[in-house]
C-alpha cells in the first residue's frame, strides 16, 4: 500500500472544498486548479498550492486534460481527485493520469468506459440476470419491431431518443395506436433536435421512485454498500432534495438493492466509491438504471447516517488499502436530508441568477452541515453549475429531520442573487412530502411556482 503526500483536485466549487477538507484531516497536501474566473475562489484559498489552468470557459480550463495533467506533473502530486462533473467520468482523463504515473482517485479507465456504454451494459447485466427496465436492447429499426417489443414488455411504453437527454424526444404511449403516432412524432423530433432519428423503447414505469445505493470496493474484490439514498424529488431530471434512508425502503428491499448493486459492481470490476441507480415501482419491483462512477453531490446524507467519510474512503481505497469494514458493521443511524441550494430563481422558472453575494448568513446549530464555497462579497459567475451549496441535516428520525431542515432553511439569509431556499421551504411544508408519499413526478405540481 502506498501513501499519498500530495493530491491535485481537478474541480472547483463546494466539492473541491470538500475534498481539500478530507485531505487536510488526513495530513495530505493539496493542489487546487482554477480558471481565470475563480482566482478568488475558496478552494484556491484553502489549498496549499494553486495552479491557473486557463480561461473561464470550462472546456478551456476544468475540461482541459492537457493543462490539468501538466499542473499535476509540475506540482509533483501522487494522485488526482476528479470530484463530480467535469472530467470525473471521462475515461480518457483517467487513462491520461495513469500514463503520467498519477493515481486517479476513482475506478479504472476501462471501468468508466464500461459504465458509460448503455447498450453493452444492458446486455451484460441481462446475461447476469440483473433486473433492468424491460425494453429494446438496441434501437428499434421499424414500427413492426416497436410493436413486438411493446407487446412483450406490456403497455404503457416510453420512446427515448438515442441522442437525447433533458427530457426532449421522449414520448409515452398507452396502446398500439398511440405508439404508431408516437413513433412518427418522436423520430421527427429526435432528428430535428439531435440530428439522429434513432429511438429506444422501454416499458414505462409508472410512479417510480429514484433510489440509489452507495458502494465501496477495494482492489482485492471486497465490496460493501452503505445503504440507499432517496432521490425522487427532482425537477426536469435534476435532483433537488435527497435523504437517507428512504421512507419507502424496508430492510428486505435494502438488502436486495444492496446485493444487486454489489453484483453489478463486481461484474465490471468496479473499484473505489460508486453509486448504482435504480427505479423502484410502487410494488417494490426494482430496475437497475446506471452506474455513477464518481463521488456524488448527495454523498453527505450517507456520511451522516453511516458515520463514514466517503471522500476519505476514496483516498484510502485509491492508496490500495483494504476495506476496513464488513457489511455487518454498516448500520444506518438516524435520518439525514439534503437540500441543494442553487443560484436560480424559483419565482422566475428557475432562471439562473449569477451575481455578487451580500449579507450572507448560513444556517448552523445542532445537526446542521453546510457544504459550500460561497462567502460574503463572493461573485457567483455564470460560467459554471448553479449549485452554490448543500444544506444537510441529521436527526434521530425523519420527523425530527424535517423540523430541523425547516428551522435551518428559516435561518438562511442571502442577498444579491436569487436562490432555491423559498422553494425548499414550500416542499418542506407539503403534506405528501412530510408523509414520505412521493415519486419522481412529485415536483410537477411545483413546476409553475409563481
Amino acid at each position, binding site marked *: 500500500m502506498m501513501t499519498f503526500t500530495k493530491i491535485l483536485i481537478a474541480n472547483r466549487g463546494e466539492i473541491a472544498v470538500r475534498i481539500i477538507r478530507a485531505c487536510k484531516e488526513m495530513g495530505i497536501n493539496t493542489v487546487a486548479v482554477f480558471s481565470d474566473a475563480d482566482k478568488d475562489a475558496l478552494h484556491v484559498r484553502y489549498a496549499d498550492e494553486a495552479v491557473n489552468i486557463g480561461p473561464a*470557459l470550462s472546456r478551456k480550463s476544468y475540461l482541459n486534460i492537457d493543462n490539468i495533467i501538466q499542473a499535476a506533473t509540475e506540482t509533483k502530486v501522487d494522485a488526482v481527485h476528479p470530484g463530480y462533473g467535469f472530467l470525473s467520468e471521462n475515461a480518457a482523463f483517467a487513462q491520461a493520469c495513469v500514463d503520467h504515473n498519477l493515481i486517479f482517485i476513482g475506478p479504472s479507465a476501462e471501468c468508466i468506459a464500461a459504465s458509460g456504454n448503455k447498450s453493452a451494459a444492458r446486455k451484460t447485466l441481462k446475461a447476469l440476470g440483473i433486473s433492468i427496465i424491460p425494453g429494446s436492447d438496441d434501437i428499434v429499426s421499424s414500427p413492426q419491431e416497436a410493436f413486438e417489443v411493446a407487446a412483450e414488455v406490456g403497455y404503457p411504453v416510453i420512446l427515448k431518443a438515442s441522442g437525447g437527454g433533458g427530457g426532449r424526444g421522449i414520448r409515452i404511449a398507452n396502446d398500439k395506436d398511440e405508439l404508431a403516432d408516437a413513433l412518427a412524432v418522436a423520430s421527427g423530433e429526435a432528428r430535428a433536435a439531435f440530428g439522429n432519428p434513432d429511438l429506444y423503447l422501454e416499458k414505462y414505469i409508472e410512479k417510480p421512485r429514484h433510489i440509489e445505493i452507495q458502494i465501496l470496493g477495494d482492489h482485492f474484490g471486497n465490496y460493501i454498500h452503505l445503504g440507499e439514498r432517496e432521490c425522487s424529488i427532482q425537477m426536469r431530471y435534476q435532483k433537488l432534495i435527497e435523504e437517507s434512508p428512504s421512507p419507502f425502503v424496508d430492510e428486505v428491499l435494502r438488502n436486495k438493492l444492496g446485493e444487486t448493486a454489489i453484483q453489478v459492481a463486481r461484474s465490471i470490476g468496479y473499484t473505489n466509491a460508486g453509486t448504482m441507480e435504480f427505479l423502484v415501482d410502487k410494488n417494490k419491483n426494482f430496475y437497475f438504471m446506471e452506474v455513477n462512477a464518481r463521488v456524488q453531490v448527495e454523498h453527505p446524507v450517507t456520511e451522516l447516517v453511516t458515520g463514514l467519510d466517503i471522500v476519505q474512503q476514496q483516498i484510502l481505497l485509491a492508496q490500495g488499502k483494504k476495506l476496513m469494514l464488513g457489511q455487518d458493521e454498516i448500520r444506518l443511524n438516524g435520518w439525514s436530508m439534503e437540500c441543494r441550494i442553487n443560484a436560480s430563481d424559483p419565482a422566475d422558472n428557475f432562471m439562473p441568477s*449569477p451575481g455578487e453575494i451580500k449579507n450572507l448568513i448560513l444556517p448552523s446549530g445542532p445537526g446542521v452541515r453546510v457544504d459550500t464555497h460561497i462567502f460574503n462579497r463572493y461573485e457567483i459567475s455564470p460560467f459554471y453549475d*448553479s449549485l452554490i451549496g448543500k444544506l444537510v441535516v441529521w436527526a434521530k428520525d425523519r420527523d425530527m429531520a424535517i423540523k430541523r431542515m425547516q428551522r435551518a432553511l428559516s435561518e438562511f439569509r442571502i442577498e444579491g442573487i436569487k436562490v432555491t431556499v423559498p422553494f425548499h421551504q414550500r416542499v418542506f411544508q407539503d403534506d405528501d412530502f412530510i408523509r414520505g408519499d412521493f415519486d419522481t413526478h412529485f415536483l410537477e405540481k411545483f413546476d409553475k411556482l409563481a
Partner: protein
Amino acid sequence: MELKRYTVRSPVMGTFYRASAPGEKPLVEVGQLVNASDVVCMIESMKIFTELRADQAGVVTKILVEDEEPVMKNQDLIEIEIE
C-alpha cells in the same frame, strides 16, 4: 418609408453563442432576413442554454458581440431592422 430598429437583449448574465451547437454554422448573419420567433442566438448561463428569438420579422443589421464572449443582463446583442 421609415425604418425601425430593435435589439435582441440578453435576459441573464452569461456567454453569447452564435450557433446552437459547437461546430455548427451561426444561426444568423448580418443581412439575413429573419421571421418573428426565429432563434437568432443562444445564451449559456450556469450550464443552462436559452434560445433567444426575434420579436418581429426584419433584417439583421448588426451583431454586437463576438461569439463565446461574456455578456451582462440586458446587454444588446443583435440589432434587427424592421421594414
